[in-house]
């Protein structure tokens, strides 16, 4: 199933990704969001970011994805031993979050095609993903006509269509029905062996999908 979803060829590239975060701190003005957070994650491993509302889970996700700078501390990403940053990091990272919104004026497929081209991925990889997440019938509808659950499924597709080495899911079960949550759990099992996975959540069931936990207070 994993090969069919991601590859049109018979081989899948072996890869080794690692992320090392040391003493990360973040403040906005005088408001400290979190302080002295350290963690490491590699291919095949998973970590849950947990904590109360406002503890900085989403901010930490952004820092892990390389789209936000930490206030203090260092974070390093490596793929097969080579350091990643900027565009090279962007190409191997997938992020699905409530704050990551695709374009309402584009259809589901147009959003996917745009994201694939921008990341240098093959848009054809999206077809089995649309089938898997139950959006095949809706892919040519404008996003403004999607329900909240359909939007969430599309966000998951957009985050994984380029077979990322690092996948960050911020509240992935939000707005999903029981079938959607089941599909999400199934999908995570399919990809976890070749992906470094981070899930930011307050849901204990989602946190249980990960092998380790980073608790923010």
């Amino acid at each position, binding site marked *: 199933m994993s090969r069919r979803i991601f590859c049109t060829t018979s081989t899948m590239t072996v890869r080794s990704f690692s992320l090392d975060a040391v003493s990360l701190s973040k403040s906005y003005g005088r408001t400290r969001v979190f302080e002295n957070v350290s963690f490491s994650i590699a291919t095949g491993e998973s970590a849950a970011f947990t904590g109360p509302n406002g503890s900085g889970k989403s901010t930490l996700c952004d820092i892990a994805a390389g789209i936000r700078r930490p206030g203090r501390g260092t974070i390093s990403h490596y793929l097969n031993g080579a350091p990643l940053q*900027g565009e090279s990091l*962007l190409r191997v990272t997938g*992020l699905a979050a409530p704050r990551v919104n695709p374009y309402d004026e584009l259809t589901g497929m147009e959003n996917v095609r*745009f*994201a694939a*081209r921008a*990341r240098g991925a093959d848009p054809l990889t999206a077809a089995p993903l649309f089938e898997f997440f139950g959006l095949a019938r809706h892919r040519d509808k404008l996003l403004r006509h999607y329900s909240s659950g359909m939007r969430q499924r599309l966000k998951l597709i957009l985050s994984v269509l380029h077979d990322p080495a690092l996948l960050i899911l911020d509240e992935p079960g939000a707005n999903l029905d029981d079938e959607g949550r089941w599909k999400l759990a199934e999908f995570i099992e399919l990809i976890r062996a070749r992906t470094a996975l981070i899930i930011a959540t307050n849901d204990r069931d989602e946190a249980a999908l990960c092998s380790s936990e980073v608790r923010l207070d």
Partner: protein
Amino acid sequence: MIEAILANIAKDFRIEFRRRFAVNVALSFAAITTLAVSLTAGGARLETRTHALLFWIIIFFSAMNGLSHVFTREEEEGTALFLRTTSPELAVFTAKLVFNMAVMAVIAAAVVPLYVFFLNVEIASPGRFALVACAGSAAIASSTTALGAIVARAGGRGSLFTIISFPVVLPPLWVSIKATQSSIAGGGAAQSIVFLLAFSGALVAVSYMLFGHIWIEE
């Protein structure tokens, strides 16, 4: 990178084609202002300097209505983070620059015939006049694209964009007014056109160097 740039350009133009917000706002402002000026002039014969001034006032404020939209829309509709996670920052900037150049081209293409027709301007060097309009419009687009990103991040609306753009746009605006006056009167404008193109190039280069610091979140 080329593919990412093309993807962003296609995306921006597709969205604008379906919404037509930026172009409609800018063209509406340009048309209404031109008509208002022509009615106020009442057929009076204006000096070339006055024509040049009025022409570029219309272009400038039409641009201010349309050029900030390209980044403001991303922040207001919550698509900016999606863009940050899918596209390299330089691809985003290049696409937005191309889009703003196109908006300015549409504004200039609309204002030039409207202005010439309604104010009954006799242009001694139409070719030079058109070149100055193109070069000046490009300079405005080049110098304001990165500023649009700053304004969008600051949560600002149209007035803030105009305020912070004016000092940057003033030099090419001044040169464009002088060159337009000269082309209407039949004089030369080559040096001014070269200045405007060089200004565009310099501002684009500076914008490329700074855009990464504007775009990535702190």
